């Protein structure tokens, strides 16, 4: 009888171990479990580190040739402290006679700062429609995470460049908006230009619409 009870208990304990382990790891962050929730946007992280060296963030802009917009930053730089949420502006004007939908991408240089550059709210990756002749201000609310001071490779960086590129938007096969430009141009605007890429999978042969994965020759 006792052995049966012991076996049942052991069986039950092995089932209970999974959620218990998960709860323990999530609470303590043991073995690298990411602490979910607001993550790097938790309010406690958003305090300026007074006394830290200021970082100069420079704003650049570019537009694709297919896009009839002017797009310029309203300030050349902003000097920010780590952990300090800051505002910056770009202005975009549709110089054509039609309404145009644009979509923006961006990258951050140097690469080692990119994981610490956090955008609270901006105007990128989603479609932005400008009416013919319209000019509009586009704000960007961001901060540089204070963990950058703990990263020996990145803590001495004082110059950060933010490059925004606006593309014309088009709909792809799935009906999603995407930049109307060659893939390598879009990749370059995202900062991937010096990485090797795998061949894109050719999905034009699936007549029935399901995306079968084919080995790229």
């Amino acid at each position, binding site marked *: 009888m006792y052995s049966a009870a012991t076996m049942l208990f052991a069986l039950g304990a092995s089932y209970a171990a999974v959620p218990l382990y998960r709860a323990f790891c999530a609470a303590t962050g043991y073995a690298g479990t990411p602490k979910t929730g*607001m993550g790097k*946007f938790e*309010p406690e992280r*958003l*305090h300026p580190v007074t006394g830290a060296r*200021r970082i*100069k963030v420079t704003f650049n802009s570019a537009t694709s040739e297919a896009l009839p917009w002017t797009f310029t930053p*309203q*300030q050349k*730089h*902003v*000097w*920010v*402290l780590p*952990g*300090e*949420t*800051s*505002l910056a*502006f770009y202005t975009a004007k549709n110089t054509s006679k039609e309404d145009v939908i644009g*979509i923006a*991408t*961006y*990258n*951050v240089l140097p*690469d080692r700062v*990119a994981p610490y550059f*956090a*955008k*609270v*709210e*901006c*105007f*990128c*990756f*989603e479609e*932005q*429609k*400008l*009416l013919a002749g*319209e000019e*509009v*201000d*586009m*704000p960007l*609310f961001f*901060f540089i995470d204070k963990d950058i001071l703990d990263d020996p490779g990145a803590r001495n960086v004082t110059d950060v460049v933010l490059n925004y590129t606006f593309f014309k938007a088009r709909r792809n096969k799935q009906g*999603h*908006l*995407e*930049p109307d430009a060659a*893939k390598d141009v*879009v*990749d370059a605007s*995202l*900062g*991937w230009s010096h*990485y090797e*890429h*795998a061949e894109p999978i050719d999905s034009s042969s699936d007549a029935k619409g399901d995306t079968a994965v084919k080995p790229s020759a």
Partner: protein
Amino acid sequence: MSFGRPGSSQILQAAPPDRGSFPLDHDGECKAMMSAYLKCLKENKSASTPCRNLTKGYLDCRMQRGLMQKEEWENIGLGAVNGSPDSRGATKK
């Protein structure tokens, strides 16, 4: 992001913003606050700290006009900044 990008097990270069995208201010309702902020930046050698009250003012302008989702100031890092009066008070979520 709705368009393709190379996957990576490391932190991705361009992560989407936490709160998404600002709606466009088509009517320029907050342009005056923006100009005030930019003027402050020019006067303070582009340092962002002295102008944080205007940052708060601009975002408050957007929130009042439905151009930004309302948010407690502490949650966006502006809790300690004196700016436009905090009419929402310290409400619990």
